């Protein structure tokens, strides 16, 4: 099945595209190329990137890390804005917009909050969703394309916000933060003993100060805005909406395709809209009607006879590429056998990295080229 990316990009009902996949498969570049193409097809697009490589950021004219969408110059049609997520800044803004200045100051200076907002596993995902929700609410853009954070696995993007939310709203945090109320009151004596050990061990491990900081933080945010879990749930609901489309990005390698398969299964399970799979950096080989063995045999014949070293090298190169392509196709076919309904778009490997809008445009054209035979 082939992927009709232009149909998705021009569908006025689609307002969010999420690009996901494991690290190092070209997710950010794909998100940027989709954004540029959508804009030039007439839409008002904002691309939310998480951690773009310097050159890619430059290609889109992003020089400032100020957590605000900036218009990209040189767009032929529509409009394109791009921004880099600053997770700490985004978290600070959430705090500031939901509390009076005094309490905001108290929260922002809490050591636990500082750790939470800058280095916490899951904060980046949570804030990416938070920012997505904000951009969507601004209604200045009719299409937002999100690149997902480089996580241990692609599912983290879906799970981390809920995990962080339920952690901050959870039972255990209530217990360590309310020693004065008598830990574990009303939850049974045996459990209460367990919690006694629990707080005891935690203070041994982390120190009493850390627990006190956590307690103050929770008390402060409690009175200012509703649960973190509810916020995470609301954004999650946005992702399940029919106005959203997920694009899974992978490379034709075993690990990347395994991650992609996990993600596809998860999207199915949660009835989330999946646009298709983009398979980056596939090895293209021009059709010559020859088999790899025939090509290799010819190269060996030349070498054995001591003739035409250049031609022998070219034939060897051709045979090597055929072998790489065969292996990649085999992996891709295994994916398709397990997920026959998922549209797959192969993108040929490029000899050079992307440096400018022209490069992104070229990738965009490849993304939309339904004639790529691979």
């Amino acid at each position: 099945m082939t992927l009709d990316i232009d149909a998705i990009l021009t569908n006025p009902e689609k307002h969010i595209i999420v690009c996901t996949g494991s690290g190092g498969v070209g997710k950010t570049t794909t998100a940027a190329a989709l954004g540029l193409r959508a804009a030039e097809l007439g839409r008002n697009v904002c691309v939310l990137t998480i951690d773009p490589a310097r050159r890619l950021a430059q290609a889109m004219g992003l020089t400032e890390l100020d957590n605000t969408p900036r218009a990209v110059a040189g767009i032929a049609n529509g409009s394109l804005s791009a921004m880099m997520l600053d997770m700490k800044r985004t978290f600070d803004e959430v705090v500031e917009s939901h509390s009076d200045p005094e309490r905001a100051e108290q929260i922002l200076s809490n050591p636990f909050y500082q750790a939470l907002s800058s280095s916490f596993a899951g904060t980046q995902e949570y804030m990416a969703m938070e920012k997505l929700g904000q951009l969507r609410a601004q209604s200045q853009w009719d299409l937002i394309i999100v690149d997902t954070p480089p996580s241990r696995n692609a599912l983290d993007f879906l799970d981390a916000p809920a995990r962080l939310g339920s952690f901050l709203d959870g039972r255990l945090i209530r217990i360590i933060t309310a020693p004065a109320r008598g830990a574990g009151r009303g939850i049974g004596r045996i459990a209460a003993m367990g919690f006694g050990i629990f707080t005891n061990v935690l203070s041994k491990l982390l120190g009493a100060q850390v627990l006190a900081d956590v307690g103050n933080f929770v008390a402060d945010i409690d009175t200012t805005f509703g649960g973190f879990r509810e916020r995470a749930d609301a954004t999650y609901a946005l992702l399940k909406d029919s106005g959203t489309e997920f694009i899974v990005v992978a490379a034709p390698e075993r690990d990347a395709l395994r991650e992609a398969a996990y993600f596809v299964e998860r999207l199915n399970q949660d009835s989330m809209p999946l646009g298709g799979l983009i398979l980056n950096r596939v090895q293209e080989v021009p059709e010559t009607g020859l088999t790899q063995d025939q090509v290799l045999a010819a190269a060996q014949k030349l070498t054995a006879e001591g003739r035409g070293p250049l031609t022998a090298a070219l034939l060897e190169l051709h045979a090597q590429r055929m072998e790489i392509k065969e292996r990649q196709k085999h992996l891709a076919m295994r994916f398709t056998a397990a997920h026959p309904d998922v549209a797959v778009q192969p993108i040929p490997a490029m000899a050079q990295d992307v440096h400018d809008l022209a490069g992104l445009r070229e990738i965009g054209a490849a993304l939309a080229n339904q004639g790529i035979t691979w």
Partner: protein
Amino acid sequence: MQNWPNATLHVVTGKGGTGKTTIAAALAIALAKNGHRTILMEVEGRQGIAQLFDTPPLPYEERKIAVAPGGGEVWALAVDTEDALLDYLEMFYKLRRAGSALRKMGAVDFATTIAPGLRDVLLTGKACEVVKRKEKKQDNAYDYVILDAPPTGRITRFLNVNGEVSGLAKVGPIKSHADSVMSVIASEQSAIHLVTLLEEMPVQETLDGVSELEAAALPVGAIFVNMTRPPQLDAQQRVMAIAGQLPRSEIESEISQSGLTATNQLIDALLNEASDHSERVDLEITELERLTERGLPIFTLPLLPSGIDLGGLYELSAIMSASGIGGE
């Protein structure tokens, strides 16, 4: 290993997609060559080792997973944070039973969530415990410990556990545990290797990673350049290939001599591929020069057209051995 004669702990990091687990595994085999005992550890809960060696998921238990040429054993361990925390509680507080209760309550996850630094201390702490067995001449000691570590972007924070726990207990067991971990990681007992591809982004990230590690006074080992394409054409041929000036008629007649039919389709394909390959090789050479400027040892490993399976791992480890890694 000759470059780092005293290094028992070899930490392997790299940007996603560069093959760091593959390199760590091949290194574990290469270092086990000629009768050594090595252990390959993973800490990210991905079961990458089991997938690579095609074995069932690894438990939190040291298991022999491969042998090396010349007699030698490769063991593996998937370190789990919860188990490492329970080990720790047992070691310092004799609290194993309470630990199991804590696990049921989800408290271990909670504690490591509150203090992500705690998780890293526990994981690196486990690696250091295994390293120290050698010094203590314990029966279960290993000659080399190879740690498949988190990616380049997070490696300095992961290893620099002292910085990580500075916000936690200022004194007490966690602090002294972190100090003892640092006494191994920041010493000549360790070498931190970075895996990269010869592409702009991974090379930049590798160079940034080296600077960060050096700034934190952590011992950088070597750069492993993975998945390179050995040039099929020399420099002059590459210039001609890119300019479309390779001698077409000569190639045509040589094709005929090789037993194939010299169709235009075939010649065009070969010339296009030559140009594409040359551009790629030139780019790789530029990137390799950027890496070379750092003055670190560089080991180059080829892209295996057949992909990475168990045989591929041995192939890569043999290339490492031939470049002087292990085997003494």
